[in-house]
């Protein structure tokens, strides 16, 4: 047994430990794309909220801050503004998931790591728990008219999901999660600027993080 065998042994130990417990095929590019979709969504949402006559078929929201609870919830939840915002939100989510799936599948193939294996399942379960909890909570709160909590709650639950997920993929994702949580707290502290914080957290941060990951791991 010579020197090179020792080093090969160590490299294979390290490789197996990482690949068996972490899903390292997440694509950095998909982060960048998700960020771009989020920014487009935020611009559309902004227009829906602040120039409603142009974009919501003449519907005018009640006077005052559109983030705060107004009127009874039946009136609110079925208002064209809210429906349009929900439509934009789900559009962004769907586009981001689809792109993420396609790019990650491509990278997994290149790495020879199973797209639907032990590690990706663990990662998905870890993320789904806080995300579904947050998702249902937010939808119920919207239906009660608590629109001001949407942005901070989205950021907070997403941040927690990322911090949890860092055990099952690149550890760097933890820092993205912590940034999202800090933004969530700021968004809660400054009501009325929710959309701005949301756009920064889901748009700008994703683009920055995605670019860093792309440079670090995808090449």
């Amino acid at each position, binding site marked *: 047994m010579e020197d090179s065998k*020792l080093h090969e042994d160590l490299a*294979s130990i390290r490789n*197996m430990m990482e*690949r*068996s*417990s972490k899903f390292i095929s997440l694509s950095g590019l998909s982060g960048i794309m998700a960020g771009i979709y989020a920014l487009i969504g935020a611009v559309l949402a902004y227009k829906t909220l602040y120039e409603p006559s142009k974009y919501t078929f003449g519907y005018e929201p009640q006077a005052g801050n559109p983030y705060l609870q107004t009127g009874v919830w039946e009136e609110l939840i079925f208002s064209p503004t809210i429906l349009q915002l929900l439509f934009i939100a789900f559009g962004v989510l769907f586009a981001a998931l689809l792109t993420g799936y396609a790019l990650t599948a491509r990278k997994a193939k290149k790495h020879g790591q*199973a797209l639907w*294996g*032990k590690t990706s399942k663990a990662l998905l379960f870890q993320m789904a728990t806080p995300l579904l909890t947050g998702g249902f909570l937010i939808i119920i709160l919207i239906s009660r008219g608590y629109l001001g909590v949407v942005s901070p709650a989205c950021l907070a639950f997403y941040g927690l999901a990322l911090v949890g997920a860092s055990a099952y993929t690149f550890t760097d994702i933890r820092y993205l999660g912590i940034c999202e949580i800090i933004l969530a707290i700021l968004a809660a502290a400054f009501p009325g600027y929710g959309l701005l914080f949301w756009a920064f957290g889901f748009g700008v941060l994703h683009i920055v993080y995605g670019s860093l990951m792309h440079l670090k791991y995808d090449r």
Partner: protein
Amino acid sequence: MKVDFSKLDKAFENRVRLQIMSVLMVNESYDFTSLKDLLDVTDGNLASNLKALEKEEYITIHKSFVGKKPNTNYQASAKGKKAFTDHLNALEQLIKQQKK
């Protein structure tokens, strides 16, 4: 340069066995199919190496059913974990000596 290879564990001379133990060190348990996908080896190769590790009592086998499909899970035993750690330490020593 005096290098002592005697401290290296013979059971881990085989690369597949070394890799199996690496996986079981960082995961509570791992099933046969996932191991096969990860290591990219044939059924027969994996099975014979698992058997060798089992014979050394380095791993334990847990058979169960998922629906109607048999599912075999493997876990590192305390003895196996110690053997692997000792092997790693021996590797480290060897590499340090060779650098001198």
